[in-house]
């Protein structure tokens, strides 16, 4: 068997519990929502949206960080090169993201077809998704999921290379950059223009287009960090 596929299998072996738990949490959150909205009956406002999907996205972030922090030292100890490790992680991440995206698109289609599970509940979907085709829907679910995973991966690579202090420094740097940007926008009175820019973006570029650039940047930064990391 190809070595990269073999290493991806090892990622899956480490992730087995991690693949199931977000789905269990998702199912519980969904059940609770059904109960609550069922009890509220006609008091529900106009097509409410819940945040139940967040568990999938947050566990993706945790997966990314753990995949590096725990699998990387193990893989190198098993005579795997950094290149093979990264390729396998990329393969596994893409496969995992695709599987979640397909699942979510199917569930949201069912949700639409059943009129929000018979009670106008929006759990898997969001209003704007109805106007998009299936390929766009897949991307809108998948790219933010990839972005969360890569954020975790980036933090994980900083951790294995520079340890806790590196992670604190990286988080500080990001906060500083964010604060600086906000300060500049305020100074030049550009908030209205910024808001308009966001409103002009289509759902596809907002949730898939721009985030995919961030995904590529994070992947490149992660690899640059990982290729000189030691277990």
């Amino acid at each position, binding site marked *: 068997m190809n070595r990269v596929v073999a290493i991806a299998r090892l990622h899956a072996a*480490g992730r087995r519990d*991690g693949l199931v738990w977000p789905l269990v949490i998702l199912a519980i959150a969904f059940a609770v929502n059904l109960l609550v909205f069922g009890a509220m009956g006609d008091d529900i406002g106009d097509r409410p949206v819940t945040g139940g999907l967040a568990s999938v996205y947050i566990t993706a972030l945790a997966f990314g960080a*753990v995949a590096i922090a725990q699998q990387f030292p*193990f893989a190198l*100890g098993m*005579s795997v*090169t950094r290149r093979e490790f990264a390729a396998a992680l990329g393969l596994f991440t893409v496969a995992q993201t695709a599987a979640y995206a397909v699942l979510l698109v199917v569930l949201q289609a069912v949700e639409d077809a059943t009129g929000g599970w018979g009670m106008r509940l929006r759990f898997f979907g969001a209003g704007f998704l109805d106007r998009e085709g299936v390929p766009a829907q897949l991307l809108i679910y998948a790219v933010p999921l990839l972005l969360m995973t890569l954020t975790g991966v980036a933090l994980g690579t900083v951790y294995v290379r520079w340890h806790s202090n590196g992670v604190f420094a990286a988080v500080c740097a990001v906060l500083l950059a964010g604060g600086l940007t906000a300060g500049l926008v305020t100074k030049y009175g550009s908030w209205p223009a910024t808001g308009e820019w966001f409103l002009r973006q289509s759902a596809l570029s907002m949730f898939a287009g721009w985030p995919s650039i961030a995904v590529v940047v994070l992947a490149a930064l992660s690899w640059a960090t990982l290729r000189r990391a030691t*277990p």
Partner: protein
Amino acid sequence: MTPVVSVQDLSKRYGAVAAVDGVSFELRRNGIYGLLGRNGAGKTTLMQLLTGQQFATAGTVRVLGADPVENERVLRQVSFIKESQRYPETYKVRHVLLAGRLLFPAWDEAFARSLVADFQLPPSRPVKKLSRGMLSALGVTVGLASRAPITFFDEPYLGLDAVARQLFYDRLLADYAEHPRTVVLSTHLIDEVSDLLEHVLLIERGRLVLDEAADTLRGQVVTVTGPAQTVDRLTANADELHREHLGPLTRATVRGAVSAGDAREAGVQLEPVSLQQLVVRITTREAVS
């Protein structure tokens, strides 16, 4: 014969500290090497450099004719079992064995199963729940069953009891006889493995202070016990490592030629020194100088 490992002026510095300092040596194809030295002498760092896990500050490393760093062809023929190996939180014993089976081309599954049975490893137990000894046994199992042409064991037997350690030595020797390879054992339990070793590398504070065939060493270092003057005369051409006084007698530990015939004639006692004593003496002297 071309060496499987060739190291030239290898150094690894962390700031001002030289963990490995200008080391040069070669490892032949097929042989059991002892990499000996105190804690912090640089043994683990050296093995990490040889397996591409650490990056050298200076010097060259050639493993199977090439630089091991990020070299898939080389690394899949190398197995490095270290005491400090970390495992993913969610892994069970069988996941680690699966990793061995998937990653080492020469992996012998039947051999792995027999080792698991010998060491009484529970396949479905999470690795993080294993005792210190079982964790070592898992490492030993992977290292032996990988049948890698170059296998490093870095203190793999910490936590193993005497029975399990003997099992490891027996299995290693038996498997080595059938499937010869280059094995490097790094250990503190020198006397326990001294019969296994064919060649000894001794490292002290990052520098290689001894690189010698074990058989040569065994005859080379002796203690000479007798009156001080006689001892001095007999050991004049030898390298003195240690000297102690026992009442009227002097006991010198020396490396080099001391004639057994002369010793008998002079009535002094000539005794071979164990590998462990030898390592202690040479290391102590290196530390002083």
